[in-house]
């Protein structure tokens, strides 16, 4: 993570609209919303979330951050180099969403000196029970099929969430969601393509795909649980009630599973509690690895 707050420099080396120097490797950064833009708005006092919105942004940011850390573990370990990069890309997309949400959340959470908490303060200097991610995101990678199963659930959930959040009365949440929804749409495509191939591949790959879905499905219910915070925010139009996403999630995931000739797993739900800081035994290990450098060398930069 970076705390740079400089404006958006144009590193384009070509002129938009068909110049003679254009090539297949031309680099243009595009103009999408970046975490640095949000940090700049926070610093200059242009945006400040309410206490509720900050808490809500913290939840979504923690979900994305923990998943990014999990997926990053696949780099150099995926079945093929090409899949390393695909999972790495998804991890980086999630990290981008986490940075935006956490930067915004930090603007509503002041440090002792009265300044806003940064994304790094929130990512590296909170303890396990202070994380608000639901338990699905911290579930172990398992084998490739288990990771695809987790990604399948996450991407269909996040797509429905971000698609609706683009209409939020909170302009910053809406802007983050508008950028994220396009990326998550691709994550849906990636995971469902793999579900079809693993389920329709060899007997071994099919067995593993079924097992992966059974491992992850107990954590599905927690994604769609409402509480007082989401109720208050949903009534105000700032957030989306998680329960309202369930119908579309069920319908769309069932379509993919039906095409793959798989059943929706019939497994008991896990108790959950991630939104209240109750986590499975896995999160502590993730945080230890993720936070050790920042805690050993506070303020280090490279």
């Amino acid at each position, binding site marked *: 993570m970076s705390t740079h707050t400089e404006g958006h420099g144009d590193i384009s080396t070509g002129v938009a*609209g*068909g110049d003679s120097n*254009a*090539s*297949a*490797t*031309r*680099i*243009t*950064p*595009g103009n999408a919303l970046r975490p640095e833009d949000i940090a700049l708005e926070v610093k200059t006092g242009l945006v400040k979330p309410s206490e509720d919105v900050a808490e809500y942004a913290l939840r979504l940011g923690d979900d994305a951050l923990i998943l990014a*850390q*999990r997926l990053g*573990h696949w780099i*150099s*370990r995926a*079945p*093929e*180099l*090409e*899949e390393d*990069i*695909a999972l790495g*890309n998804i991890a980086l997309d999630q990290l981008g969403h986490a940075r935006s949400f956490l930067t915004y959340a930090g603007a509503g959470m002041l440090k002792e000196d009265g300044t806003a908490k940064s994304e790094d303060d929130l990512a590296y200097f909170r303890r396990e029970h202070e994380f608000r991610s639901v338990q699905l995101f911290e579930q*172990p*990678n*398992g*084998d*490739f*099929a*288990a*990771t695809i199963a987790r990604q399948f659930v996450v991407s269909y959930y996040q797509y429905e969430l971000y698609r609706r959040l683009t209409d939020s009365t909170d302009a910053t949440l809406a802007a983050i969601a508008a950028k994220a929804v396009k990326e998550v749409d*691709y994550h849906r*495509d*990636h995971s469902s*393509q793999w579900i079809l*191939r*693993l389920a329709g*591949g*060899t007997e*071994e*790959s099919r067995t*593993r795909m079924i097992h992966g879905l059974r491992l992850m499905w107990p954590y599905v219910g927690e994604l769609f649980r409402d509480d007082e915070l989401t109720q208050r925010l949903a009534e105000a139009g700032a957030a989306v009630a998680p329960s309202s996403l369930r119908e579309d999630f069920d319908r769309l995931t069932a379509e993919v599973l039906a095409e793959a000739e798989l059943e929706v797993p019939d497994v008991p739900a896990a108790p959950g509690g991630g939104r209240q800081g109750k986590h499975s035994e*896995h999160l502590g*290990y*993730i945080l*230890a*690895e993720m936070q*050790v450098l920042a805690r050993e060398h506070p303020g280090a930069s490279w």
Partner: protein
Amino acid sequence: MIPTDSPTSQARPGTPVGVAPAGNPEMPAPAPEHHDRSAWGLWEVFVRSSRGLSHVHAGSLHAPDAAMALRNARDLYTRRNEGVSIWVVPADAIAASDPDSKGSFFESPQGKDYRHATYYTKSEGVKHL
């Protein structure tokens, strides 16, 4: 080093899709078998950077089928906003000129000035040349 997972829950490095896991979680995992790269075919990737330009060869990649080849190409070759269109072609579907026959194939036009417009003298009075 701090492990992020218990060893038994972790996919072993290099384990390809479709290779059986260690049967007993208490037993150390056997050495991963060498993955047969030929299981995934080679694809050549062509990227068009903007409208009005041609697709340009960007590189190659491995993929199990055309649909995944397109997705892998998107991830590998358009990460920095490089393209508006991608083609993928099975590498063995491309017929290439023989590098050893360079002389007969590509050097024959040398010295044939008359194939260039500059060889010819402009006739008097012809405009816009």
